[in-house]
């Protein structure tokens, strides 16, 4: 009898959660209730739809947990029951992932602004305009350049770093923490640190050190030849620690006997690396590659803070293009959206290509 009640609670909780989530998300459209919370304590929460959404999430999680205890209890026989339990999560995904994607796609066929996104239907004109816009083409080129170098460098460097810091020594524990620290700092702060380091006019640290060796100062961020590299260096520095840690964890999973067997099999260090370590950490490496690639195409904050696309347009990237056109210029939201769709397609195609080309070589 108690079990039946648990099940009933779980089902009704999840149904309620779905309603709340949908309600919260759609309220502004249907009833025109303000998106902006009212002043004062209860109004601030209740006025907006946020409250509904938060309540929906909490209820959804709670009912799923409840439901899973019922499932473990061997109660569930009905087919629909599991679907009911994951319904809140699915609705959440729909509202916050699927809907925005479709919305961007939808808006990319319009000319409009943030205030009035669908002012005029223009079909594919935004995409055509995009392909003719030299600023966009430069951004795409720069982004690809950045992504290729950045991903390669991060993977190679964190692999080397992981091999180097692999052994259990006190100093290595410290070093792991040290290389991980940049990951904890906001990108914008990192960007400013590196702007100081690479400063040209007032002799940043880098140029000061170089001048000690008699090398004349280099305008790292002010020259179109070095600006992108400076951004890459900053981002590599920031990301290495995180991926080093992931790869070290992966390597620690390899049983020591396997290395010992390889040593007795006369395998050289390189052979051990390519024939044993690399295949055995390939799942983690594969995930790293995908995450890094997707992330690198989204690069924005470091560029914006360090060079703001300059000098000239030598560090303009797609995400900055989207930002500028969607929110900056007048009536170009659609253009920004079409660039966003383009960016997303690149990421999709690349991820699919990785799966097609590399998944075969990943040993699970």
């Amino acid at each position, binding site marked *: 009898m108690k079990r039946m009640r648990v099940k009933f609670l779980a089902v009704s909780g999840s149904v309620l959660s779905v309603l709340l989530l949908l309600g919260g998300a759609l309220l502004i459209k249907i009833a025109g209730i303000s998106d902006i919370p009212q002043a004062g304590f209860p109004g601030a929460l209740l006025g907006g739809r946020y409250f509904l959404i938060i309540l929906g999430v909490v209820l959804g999680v709670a009912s799923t947990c409840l439901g899973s205890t019922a499932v473990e209890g061997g109660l569930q026989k009905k087919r629909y029951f599991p679907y009911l339990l994951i319904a809140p999560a699915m609705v959440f995904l729909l509202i916050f992932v699927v809907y925005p994607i479709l919305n961007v796609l939808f808006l990319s066929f319009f000319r409009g602004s943030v205030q009035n996104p669908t002012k005029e239907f223009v079909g594919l004109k935004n995409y055509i305009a995009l392909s003719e816009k030299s600023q966009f083409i430069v951004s795409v080129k720069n982004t690809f350049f950045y992504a290729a170098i950045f991903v390669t460098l991060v993977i190679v460097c964190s692999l080397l770093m992981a091999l180097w810091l692999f052994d259990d020594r006190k100093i290595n524990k410290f070093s792991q923490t040290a290389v991980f620290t940049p990951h904890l700092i906001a990108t914008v702060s990192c960007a400013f640190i590196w702007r100081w380091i690479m400063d040209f006019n007032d002799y940043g640290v880098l140029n000061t050190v170089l001048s000690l060796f008699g090398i004349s100062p280099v305008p790292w961020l002010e020259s179109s030849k070095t600006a992108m590299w400076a951004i890459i260096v900053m981002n590599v520095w920031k990301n290495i620690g995180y991926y080093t840690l992931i790869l070290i964890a992966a390597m620690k999973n390899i*049983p020591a*006997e*396997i290395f*010992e*067997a*390889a*040593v*007795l*099999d*006369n*395998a*050289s260090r390189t*052979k051990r690396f390519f*024939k*044993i370590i690399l*295949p*055995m950490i*390939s799942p983690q490496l594969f995930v790293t590659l995908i995450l890094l690639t997707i992330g690198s195409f989204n690069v924005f904050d470091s560029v914006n803070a360090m060079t703001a696309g300059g000098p000239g347009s030598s560090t303009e990237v797609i995400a900055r293009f989207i930002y500028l056109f969607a929110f900056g210029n007048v009536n170009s939201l659609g253009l920004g959206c079409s660039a966003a769709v383009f960016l997303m397609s690149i990421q999709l195609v690349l991820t699919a290509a990785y799966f097609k080309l590399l998944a075969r070589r990943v*040993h699970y």
Partner: protein
Amino acid sequence: MAGIEFQNICKSFGSAKVMENLNLTIEDGKFTVLVGPSGCGKTTLLRIIAGIGPASSGRCLMDGKDITDLEPAKRGIAMVFQNYALYPTMNVRENIVFGLKNIRMPKEERDKLVNEYSQIVGLLDQLQKSPSQLSGGQRQRVALARAMVKTPKIFLMDEPLSNLDAKLRVQMRGELIELQKRLGATFVYVTHDQVEAMSMADTIVLMNKGEIQQKGSPEEIYDDPNNVFTAQFIGTPPMNLLAMENGCRLGYRPEVVRLCREHAAAGYCAAGNIVTREMLGSETHYKVRLRDGDVMVKTQDKSFCAGEAVYISVAAGDMYFFGPDEQRIREGHARYRECLEAAGGAL
């Protein structure tokens, strides 16, 4: 060919000492079997020979040359690991051939060897599978083939047959003995199974708690144990041990006991009751409760039944004596006569 010599080997893991001042010589070209209870340091010893778990102190010689600090790869060793340590990302063929590729053996030669040895271990039709697709016993055979194919000077095998079924195990034992004779290599073989130890070994090294209890041929170990541990470790059922009044212990093997219904005329004879009877086909095991304790009797006579009152007698030559320090009291020892009399074995 290569003999191995340990000199004053100590080994500790952190603060835990598992081996202290161990001295041992493993003869060149012999089949040496290391036996001992779990955790006694057999694997540790093999790892010292292989150079992958070096000793904390002491020296390790091979052919009289100090190899204490020699790289593992240069020692000319193949090892079968207790947990196989197969390369999970390579298939069976690649696993077996990896060591040969690394020494740049030509392909035809390699393939010939791989086929030959995978035939021996019965895996010829499994070469394309990955280790995760194999059963435990098949994995073990891959590990075996991977070591055999290298035809090294020294084979180290850490319970290489533990996961095989009885029939396959007997067959692989034969193959290993034959291989050893053919190559004339030094085999160091670890096992829990004393039948395996007795049947395969030229020399048995019996260990306990990081110490060597006895080293000798299977006959010596069985017939002439140095101490209580050896006497009880080898033989199934183990040697019977009974406390005597003088603080020493009397021992005799279950198969030398004569079971009869009347008191024997002379020598050692004790009265008791049969507690259990196990008929194993060719032989029968009885557990007999004496005044001093229980003893096992192994005989071909199955005519006794549980509950029956019997006498057991043992010939003087079949009796062993052990002092309070658990060491053997041999004939000629100061206390031998005294023990023999205390046991009632003296004529």
